[in-house]
């Protein structure tokens, strides 16, 4: 059954990189992490010129309101409290507002123009606004799933069919890992904010791809990776005698059985031992300068989004391909103003700090940063009282991209005058995927894996378009 891995490796290269056969030794070498990338192994480089080497995806789980962040809708303010025209909503999918009276809710935010580009950004995001010239805002996103769990699955895998690989796995499948000591796909979730959305480990699953490509969750608090700490009473020296003896005994066994998998087992044990040192070192941000910590607003060990943004930079520096951060507080069915304050307070400054920090280190040009939720929020209000909220909304919402070959200072696409439906330059989730892959040098039509009789792609079977307008 190890042949499955070998076959997938072989397949990936045959179908994607050109016909090159891979022996078992080479297949073992590419077990994550530590496996050199395809290029390092002397294989052909990706077929297109990559602009980005890695991705940092900042997922605002719960679905931030586009109407309070990047999509300025004066007409909606005028209609505040008025019935939502039925022409917009008839026959459209709807979540918690099923069967309720639909009324317009004008934006709770003030919008201003920022930077030389004059991008329109709300006052909820004063720090991100200072990066206006570095980011490309997409105001015409659409997705197909209106409930959180499937919407995350759709954003991450391009489908709601089970057992499909997350985009981080796809990217590592296509490009291989750059790191000797770390997985190619790392996930960090943050504490703090309002009642958090559940996030399933499925969201970073490798699906039917080999599990070495799955996202590995690093924890900001406690053991950074499961079982990375020695058992109580075992010192590092002691552990190394174990690893040595196990390797020696495994080698003796390999001599009798000629089992090629043993070599790989030995390598994985040694790698695991190295990770026991490298991961805690990586996760310890106390060696950062006070100025840097302050820029992010990070307190070492607090597990906050700020600390995780700083960790994202450290992971990027160490060669991790895909870094996925989740902040889980953005499901604002009620108390929109209150919770926008809470969430923006947690997320705005660190996001901007990450962009600036990457930029000053020269890393922004080959690091693609993506910001957004699994969907947006309705122009209609939900709940009463002094501070109502907004329901889930999939027909139009906003995200932004930066770095990694993205053209800064542009706003792409638009919703209608009430911010309901994306009407101009619509960007579907699969278009976003195609664009991300393109920036990484991957052709979304060719990055495919045979599964259950289909050539499965991240972008699926429907046509997807690279959004060239936001590419530098």
């Amino acid at each position: 059954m190890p042949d499955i891995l070998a076959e997938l490796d072989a397949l990936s290269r045959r179908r994607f990189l050109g016909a090159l056969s891979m022996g078992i030794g080479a297949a073992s070498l590419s077990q994550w992490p530590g496996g050199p990338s395809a290029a390092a192994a002397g294989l052909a480089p990706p077929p297109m010129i990559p602009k980005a080497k890695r991705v940092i995806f900042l997922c605002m789980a719960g679905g931030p309101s586009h109407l309070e962040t990047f999509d300025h809708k004066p007409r909606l303010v005028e209609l505040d409290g008025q019935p939502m025209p039925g022409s917009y909503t008839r026959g459209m999918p709807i979540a918690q507002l099923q069967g309720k009276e639909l009324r317009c809710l004008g934006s709770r935010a003030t919008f201003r123009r920022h930077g030389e580009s004059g991008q329109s950004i709300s006052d909820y995001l004063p720090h991100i606004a200072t990066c206006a010239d570095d980011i490309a805002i997409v105001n015409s996103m659409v997705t197909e799933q209106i409930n959180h769990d499937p919407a995350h699955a759709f954003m991450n895998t391009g489908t709601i069919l089970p057992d499909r690989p997350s985009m981080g796995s796809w990217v590592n499948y296509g490009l291989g890992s750059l790191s000797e000591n770390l997985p190619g796909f790392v996930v960090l979730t943050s504490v703090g904010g309002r009642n958090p959305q559940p996030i399933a480990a499925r969201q970073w699953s490798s699906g039917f791809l080999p599990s070495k490509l799955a996202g590995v969750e690093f924890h900001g608090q406690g053991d950074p990776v499961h079982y990375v700490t020695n058992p109580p009473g075992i010192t590092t020296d002691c552990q190394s005698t174990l690893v040595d003896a196990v390797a020696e005994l495994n080698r003796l066994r390999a001599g009798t059985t000629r089992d090629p998998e043993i070599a790989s087992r030995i390598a994985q044990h040694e790698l695991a031992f190295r990770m026991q040192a490298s991961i805690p070192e990586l996760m310890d941000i106390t060696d950062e300068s006070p100025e840097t910590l302050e820029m992010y607003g990070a307190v070492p060990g607090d597990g906050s989004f700020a600390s995780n943004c700083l960790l994202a930079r450290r992971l990027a520096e160490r060669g991790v391909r895909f870094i996925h951060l989740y902040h889980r507080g953005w499901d604002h069915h009620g108390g929109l103003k209150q919770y926008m304050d809470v969430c923006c307070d947690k997320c705005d400054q660190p996001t901007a700090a990450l962009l600036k920090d990457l930029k000053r280190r020269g890393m922004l040009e080959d690091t693609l940063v993506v910001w957004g939720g699994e969907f947006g929020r309705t122009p209609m209000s939900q709940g009463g009282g002094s501070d109502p909220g907004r329901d889930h909304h999939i027909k139009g919402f906003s995200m932004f991209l930066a770095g990694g070959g993205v053209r800064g200072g542009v706003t792409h696409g638009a919703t209608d005058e009430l911010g309901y439906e994306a009407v101009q330059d619509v960007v579907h989730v699969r278009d976003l995927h195609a664009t991300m892959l393109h920036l990484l040098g991957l052709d979304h039509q060719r990055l495919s894996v045979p599964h259950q009789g289909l050539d499965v792609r991240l972008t699926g079977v429907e046509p997807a378009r690279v959004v060239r307008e936001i590419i530098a």
Partner: protein
Amino acid sequence: MERLAVILASLPFVASAPGAPPPVDFTRDVRPILSRKCFACHGLDAAALEADLSLVDFASATRELAPGIAAIVPGDLDASELWRRVTDAADPMPPRRAHDPLTDSEIDTLRRWIESGASYRPHWAYVVPAEPTPGAPGEATPVDRILDGAHASLGLDSSERSDPVTLLRRLSFDLTGLPPTPAEIDAFLALPPAQRMPRTVDRLLASPHFGERLAVRWLDLVRYADTVGYHGDQEHRVWPYRDWVIRAFNEDMPFDRFTRWQLAGDLVAEADPGLPDDVRQDALVASGYNRLVQTSHEGGLQLKEYRAIYMADRVRNASEVWMAATVGCAQCHDHKYDPYTHVDYHAFGAFFADIDDEAHLRNPYDGYNTSPTRREPEMRVTTPAARERLREIERRRIEAEGSLLAIGAPTPEMEAAWERTLQSRIAEGGDRVLTWVDDTLDTGGTRSGDWTFGRDPSIPARSGSTYRTQTSEGLVQHYTVDTDRRVRVESGSVLEAWIRIDPDDPPRAVMLQAHASGSWEHRVRWGDDSIPYGRTDQDSPGYRRRGRLPATGVWHRLEIPLDEIGLPAGSRIDGVAFTQHGGKVLWDAASVRHPGPVPPEVAEAAGRPPGDRSPDARRIIEEHRRATDPVVIAIDTTIERLDAERLALESMQPTTLYTRRLDPPREVRVMPRGDWLDESGPVVEPAVPVFLGEVVRRDPDAIRADRLDLANWLVAPATEGGVGPMTARVFVNRIWTMLFGEGICPSEEDFGGQGRPPTHPELLDLLAIDFMESGWNVKRLIRRLVLTDAYARSSVPAGDTAALDPGNLHFARQARHRLDAEFVRDTALHAGGLLDTGRGGPSIKPPQPPGLYRHLNFPPRRYEPDTDRSQWRRGVYVHWQRQFLHPMLKAFDAPNRESCTATRPVSNTPLAALVLMNDPVFVAAARGLAARVLEGPSDGSAPTSDHDRLARAWRITLSRNPSDSELMVLSGLLDRARTTFEEHPENARTLVGADFTKNMHGRGVTAIEFAAWIHTCRAILNLHETYTRE
């Protein structure tokens, strides 16, 4: 895969004369090319057909497309348009945009195929297995004859027989998921060689661990888990289904019944009212299969969307499990590679439209965001012991009722005496007050809380001499229940209690509560709503609001007419509870007050002299006499107690998800492009894919076919209109894969056009027919396969077979693979002597890293690991959290069970290495193994030298004796560990753990010595070989 294909394609050359072209086999050589490269546009999806050309069958491919033009002209390459197009260098087929050009060898195959007449054969998987030619005389199975023949003609050297210990270890892992014990190895070797395998196979097939082993892969297929899967991933309760699967395998349930019960156990039970209770229950538990879909309990979900999702889930699963088919791929359009149409998909889904399971979708806010959550319908599952006790209760109840009837009519003297008593009581007048509690708790029954009665000299008691003082920061409750003292409620009866609220420390609320007929849902509260018990938005008998708290500093009587809290005349109270939230309250006498000296209707009836009474009046008085007769009361109390016990016992029985039929079923319409919002499609009735025939309805007059018809169709022989032989082929291939590492059809999950054809189709057919004709006997099938020579071969390749057949598709050697995740765990625990062989029941929770469930919400989750022996149970019983599977299981590739998993991948990652090195469970196993070798076996043959002890640890874990070099490495590690721990005895004390003193101390073993042995045993439990099935 390409490399494999090239090598295999070259194999026939070996047997043929040099230079002779190998015959083209359509199924093996041509159809895979057409399917992979052509069918996307020239296949079965009518809507996607390009140039009006289909290549799926001979007639379509050779049809005249335009005058004088046909895609294929058999035998005439140059006249074939297909040949012209695939060799057109400027504009080749398949088009460049497909990025998947034909290879030279594929083009060559097409050439030879067209030249030789372009013959088509139906896809192998849709051809009913042929009746086998009779085997050689005395031949148990044809496996060896067929495989040996193939090896000879393919020029493959078959490996020799494994050594006996390797063979025993393989067999133990395959049949039980556990390695053999040293005693079992000795017993095996002591047998005459010819008897070793047959006798051991029988022993292992009879082991209760057999069912646990088989269940692991079946649970993967049907995606069994302990949580709902979507959004909040709440727990649901369906483990009785898991236990049923294990039991079914252990009891060798025929696979056809196994199939019927899962798909339609409810209909099986309905069709046969004569089924014994336990069989009926099992059939319903098995029908829980239909409920294993992932469900969502997320607020704001849309009913019709999830209805479509659940249907798709069921179609995908049932077709993959029983048909190895991807019918689910026809959800949005006709299947591109197999003959399943878009309508077939919906018609197949319609079989499941009678599953009643939408309560949580209809009212998502009605308390479904709890864990465990509700997923109606659920049924109680009675354990055999409870069933026995319930029968006993029923017997005793009948007995008690009998003795009630046996009480004879009173004599005239007795009647006269009683009449005098009645009249004097009426004459006395006043109410009847039955004091429940006063000064002491003498009600009998069980109690909870502080029942100390006392007195503050400054506050006299209201009744009797003492009272109870309840002081609390928050919620506090005191109750007595199942009491000997019981009160029959009459019309107008009132429950009363005296309280005195401390003026300086008043509570927020007080509550009175009564218990009757096994229920506490009878409450009344004064004050605010801070007591959560039974709290509802609307007033109800289970939560009656009675205004503010009474004045403080004085005794006050709380009272509530019992009929207002759901206790009408005739109810019997057998418990009361006193609850308060915060504050200081003195509680004095509690009682039930009946109005008048006797019930009013009795007083009225007794108003006339006995001889002058109407029949009604006589009846009323006689009933009252009986109701107050101490003998009758005693018997009534017995009956009530039995009823209460029955209720309690029944409510203690676990629940499980099962299938309840919805009548009429939901309407199923074809959803164009799979869009659930589009309701324009035609209504479809349940049907199997059209090209596979029709189901035979067991009731010819039935309006529609149902799930039981579907199940029958899956297992019925072809002569009865079923596809049984094809279903048998799917299952036999799964068992073969389990025993030989690779299927005869290597794509276990997909027998369709995009799968891989079987390497030995005649063998697969033969085994399938034999399996079906044996009465679908699973153990017999396994027994036959493991007693073959092929099974016993070494996993070390002979000659150059590793190069000729790297995937071992021809089984010239045995397979070598890592154990499944559950068996990795079991093997370590087994070596450490920790494995708890307890079976069944709620899933167990071994220790797991803290915070693993931090992302779960609705509600937030807390993981409470088991601390008793059950934490050491087998992996098959571990709690399966779909979204956050235990990291140990995950690291070893256990699937999350969101969908059907036919083949688990086998990875080799540092995360798995970290588990083996650092997971506390594996450290505990090492500790156990160290203790075992330091203690020695109980027969006194304890090894005393390091070498003997190391060898024993080795043999316990690996079944074999260590070599000298291996011993040297181990003793080197042991010595180094001794030095290390001598330098740092505090580390030794930490490693040996708290149990050390209990277990090892006093046996002359120091903490340092024990620690050194634990460390050395860790090495053995980290070896590749430990978890490898050779």
